[in-house]
């Protein structure tokens, strides 16, 4: 019996403000798979992600996460299975790097002992060794995004959603961050869905891409992207 897909959408439809944002979307992300979600600005990429982490709740059709209908999940339970990385990093300015990351563990009930061991290890992995006591204002954009990635990973999620994680970064830094995400995905075996509109990143790190255009979705295999 094959394991259920990490994300399985069928006939997905979202309307708000009198506009149909997503129309008859069918999308499937397998466990351990890395894929992109691409499309023009306003095409519905962030809407789909918002559905997945229950920021947005109204939809029609079928949407499952880890084999379970999304509507069956209590919000906090779903969000503990999913890590999210945002374009704007969403770090708290008045908390240190350590505190920003620890918050993700604390709301899940993780004890301070394991957090004190795990956080420095993860920070070292992403190239921020010894930066626990810095504040976000003391970090560059790329460094802040790496902190946000560590925060998303602290709960060992099965799925990581990255909403334009490189949107605020220069090309070189963006490439570094996406490369890090690919490496971490391979190391941890989690499924990962990255929203981007950067052609350069697709070329640099080819993978399956789901393209949203006028509310509908089309799948591109990575060979197609390389062309």
């Amino acid at each position, binding site marked *: 019996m094959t394991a259920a897909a990490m994300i399985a959408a069928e006939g997905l439809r979202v309307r708000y403000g009198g506009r149909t944002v997503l129309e008859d979307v069918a999308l499937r992300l397998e466990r351990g798979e890395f894929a992109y979600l691409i499309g023009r600005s306003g095409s519905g990429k962030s809407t789909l992600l918002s559905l997945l*982490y*229950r*920021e947005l*709740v109204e939809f029609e059709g079928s949407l499952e996460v880890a084999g379970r209908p999304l509507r069956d999940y*209590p*919000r*906090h*339970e779903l*969000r*503990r299975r999913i890590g*999210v990385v945002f374009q704007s990093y*969403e770090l*708290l300015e008045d908390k240190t790097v350590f505190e920003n990351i620890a*918050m*993700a563990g*604390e*709301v*899940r*009930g*993780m*004890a*301070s002992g394991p957090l004190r061991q795990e956080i420095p290890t993860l920070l070292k992995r992403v190239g921020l060794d010894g930066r626990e006591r810095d504040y976000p204002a003391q970090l560059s954009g790329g460094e802040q995004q790496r902190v946000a990635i560590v*925060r998303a990973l602290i*709960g060992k999620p099965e799925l990581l959603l990255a909403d334009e994680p490189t949107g605020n970064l220069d090309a070189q830094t963006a490439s570094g961050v996406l490369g890090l995400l690919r490496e971490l995905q391979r190391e941890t075996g989690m499924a990962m869905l990255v929203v981007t509109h950067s052609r350069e990143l697709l070329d640099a790190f080819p993978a399956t891409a789901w393209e949203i255009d006028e509310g509908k979705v089309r799948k591109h295999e990575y060979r197609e992207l390389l062309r």
Partner: protein
Amino acid sequence: MNIANYYVKEAWKGVRRNAGASAASAALILAALLVMGLLLMARAGLAGVSHYLHAQLEIKVYVEEGIDSARVADILAEQPFVASASLQTGEQLLEQLQSFFAGKPYLLEAFRDGALPDAVVLVLKEAEDMEFAAQELSRMDGIQQVVYPQELAQQLVYWSGLLQSAGLAVLAFLLALAFMIVFLAIRLALYQRSKEIRLKLLLGARAGHVRGQFLLEGAVVGLAGGAGAALVLSALGLAVKRRLTEAYGEILSLDGPAIVVLALLVALAGPILAAAASYAAVRKRIRDA
């Protein structure tokens, strides 16, 4: 338990972060609960004083000028409701006042200058006869004034009733103000920390836990105010009781342990009031989906 520890720590951090608002809220809660405690204490204490006064058997009669007080005492001693009658001269009264105003001779001077009248002191057979006796004595020729404790008790009850009503109005105002201050302080905290709250929910925190953090914040502030009121109330109550007991014996129906219990109830009222205000502030702002 880890989650509980986390939110207790977060609540404490929140109180410190808004130290000014927290202090103002605690002060207002202290004031409101102090008024409440004083009203309760006065009500309970006065009941005992009133009872004490009602139980007194002594009545003083002042005769008109020119009438022989000793002769009046002999006549009144034969009244059916009188157990005994004695004469208290002006000089004897002055001696009593000397001990009453001990250490404050300047207060006694005014009484020395004037001549204090003689009084006939009657001890009645039954306390229940007091009203009847006072009316009868007032109607008698030659009697200028009748003074009895129950009249004082009636005045005490009347004025304490007025004070209670005014006190309740002040209390209601202070409680409403304290509730509103805590409500606004928590709303301000919600606004200031909206990003943090959103982030916690995005990271998988339960909405109930996040709401609980703010309820705890309110409760901490309420406990500070309530504890302060309880301390002041205990000290005041015990001091007043000691002075009154030294002067008049056990006339208060409120004893030491009862004062302490009352103070503890006041202390508890603080966090309850503040938590209720916090709940009203966060109720619709942090929700589960």
